[in-house]
């Protein structure tokens, strides 16, 4: 099968970017980052909402894309099923919320907390992974599922630190005074910042993929026993995947909290984990760019397309359709996407470059 190929660049550029992958990523993100706001001004899209609203939507879609890329490290690269990924996202968010809001009266600046968030995420990833990664893969799935359930529960109940159901509001915005000012009304600084973070994560993950660590993940995913007998310490290697995935979620969680200026347990439910998982499965497990694109598309479908469909239908006042809230369909769509993709196209819409036997080959001997 032919891979859907990217637009053909001149040969010289292609060879250049093949040798300088990171610069290629940077160039791609800059191109997309400029193109999206421009595209959103084109008639069919421009009429839907204002430029600022579009920029906001792109920012959140990028958060989602980073999440999917992080989860892809765990699922797509190392072949471990993590069903509680939102918990790490929550950890980052709450870390920043507690350390930079008037709730406890601590006001640490954004940038060091961002680094701290990465560390916290990685630590919790290791803490959760260490006892469970020795187990068979499906037990890991249920443990992460439980963890994903326990973290919001803890956030709900540990009121002294998290303010319970109400969550923590009034979180500080990032400070970068001489250059830009982050305000609630201006989405552009957040947009630029998230693009920067996205670039960083994509470069990191692509570099990891080609490193010794990434190849070890791949070997484990394809055949754990063979990997182990080839001298890979599978437990350490899986822990690394888990920690990297958790750190990425926590990293973007910090940004998410700073962007929304409020965190509450309800934001980090099972739905977040499943929608991220759907993005990974749809995009194509193991393909960093595909997964990011999958997340982007899913987010835009659920938040723009379904919303507009609602408005359109109510404007047309078609009797039966008017009563249907199309936004309610999105969760069912996630479930259907997971099942249908696994049955029909387990490699995803954008398959990974190196063939992943784990997802595709239907005749793997047991």
């Amino acid at each position, binding site marked *: 099968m032919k891979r859907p190929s990217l637009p053909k660049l001149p040969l010289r550029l292609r060879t250049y970017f093949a040798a300088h992958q990171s610069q290629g990523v940077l160039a791609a993100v800059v191109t997309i980052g400029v193109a999206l706001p421009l595209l959103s001004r084109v008639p069919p899209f421009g009429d839907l909402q204002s430029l600022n609203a579009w920029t906001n939507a792109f920012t959140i879609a990028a958060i989602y894309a980073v999440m999917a890329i992080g989860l892809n490290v765990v*699922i797509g690269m190392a*072949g471990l*099923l993590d*069903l509680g990924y939102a918990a790490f996202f929550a950890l980052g968010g709450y870390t920043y919320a507690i350390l930079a809001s008037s709730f406890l009266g601590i006001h640490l600046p954004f940038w060091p907390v961002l680094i701290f968030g990465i560390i916290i995420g990685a630590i919790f990833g290791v803490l959760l992974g260490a*006892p*469970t990664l*020795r*187990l*068979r*893969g*499906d*037990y890991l*799935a*249920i*443990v992460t*599922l*439980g*963890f994903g*359930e*326990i973290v919001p*529960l*803890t956030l*709900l*109940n540990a009121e002294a630190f998290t303010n319970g159901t109400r969550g923590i509001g009034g979180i500080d915005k990032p400070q970068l005074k001489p250059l830009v000012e982050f305000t609630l009304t201006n989405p552009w600084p957040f947009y630029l910042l998230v693009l920067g973070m996205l670039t960083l994560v994509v470069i990191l993950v692509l570099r990891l993929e080609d490193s010794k660590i990434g190849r070890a993940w791949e070997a484990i995913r394809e055949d754990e026993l063979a990997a182990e007998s080839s001298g890979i310490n599978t437990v350490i290697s899986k822990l690394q995947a888990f920690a990297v995935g958790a750190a990425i979620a926590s990293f973007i969680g910090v940004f998410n909290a700073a962007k929304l200026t409020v965190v509450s347990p309800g934001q980090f439910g*099972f739905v977040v984990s*499943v929608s991220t*998982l759907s993005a990974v*499965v749809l995009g194509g497990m193991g393909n960093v760019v595909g997964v990011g694109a999958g997340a982007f598309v899913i987010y835009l479908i659920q938040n723009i397309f379904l919303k507009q469909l609602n408005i359109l239908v109510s404007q047309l006042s078609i009797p039966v359709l008017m009563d249907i809230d199309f936004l*309610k*369909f999105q*969760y*069912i769509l*996630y*479930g*259907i*996407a*997971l*099942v249908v993709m*696994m*049955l029909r196209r*387990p490699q995803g819409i954008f398959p990974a470059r190196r063939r992943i*036997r*784990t*997802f595709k*080959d*239907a*005749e*793997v001997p*047991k």
Partner: protein
Amino acid sequence: MAATTPVRQVRTERQRSVFVLPLVITAFLAVMLAWMGLGQFLNAITLGAVYALIALGYTMVYGIIELINFAHGDVFMVSTFVTMFVTSTILGQKDAIYGLPQLLLSLIIVFVLTVGIMAVIGAAIERVAYRPLRRAPKLAPLITAIGVSFILQNIIQFFVGPYTYNVPQIFPRDWVIMIGETRLLLLNVFVVAVAITLIVALQLFTSRTRIGKAMRTTAMDRDASSLMGVNIDRTIMITFLIGSGLAGAAGMVHGLYYGNTNFQIGFQSGLKAFTAAVMGGIGNTAGAALGGFIIAFVEVGAVVLGFSRWGGAVVFALLVIFLVFRPTGLLGSHTGDRA
């Protein structure tokens, strides 16, 4: 001489377990009764019956195809709604039924319909989402399972909304037996009796019938049993029929006893019942039943100690502890090859 020694060892081992287990269970129950009082004790036993019935479905499916059926908790959730639908819409009952013949007839109708509908739904899920992936790598059916779980939850939410519904409690809650000062609801007795009957029936079914034997051999070695003439697809389908049917029974019992439901109960109950299955030794039906009761005691114990909000966290911690230190569970599992 040398040849007889192992045989005797096996026998003493078995004798010990036969005598020790009931003794331990009785002692445990006595301690719990003394500690939490009859009211909470009955709560725990009844909750345990529900968990045990759900856990059986997890353990049977895991035993036979080594899949954590994430959708199973939601199958239970759906069954509570089916029970509600059958009692209030088909039978038109809103309140307790006091006439004994009418009550029995209604209970039987609700039971048969709920269990039947759930069995069919469970088998259909297997047919659509799991069977095509039987030879696929492990990750694939796990992902479809989580997808099915999500679909079930949201279909229910889509149709009935995120509200908590009242399930008609047709079994009278004021039929009580007085033991000294404390009131013992007949409903408690009924619920536990139903659960234990079903558990025993399942044990007999798997150990005595041809289909039961087919299920056990398929769990042990699918290819070998296929060569021996076992119809694998049919056997696995029957496993799902029974497992989901038991979840249906759990849903009915839950409705009768707690009298309410919403679209989210499947997730938590499923996680707890899975913990019960792991605790008892996954793949081991008697163990799953035992685990269900233990989990219920842990949860109610947390309530008694005043940690009711942390019950879920305690159960989850137990899951991790068991997976790490004793992955084969209390009674041992027959699929613990590389747990």
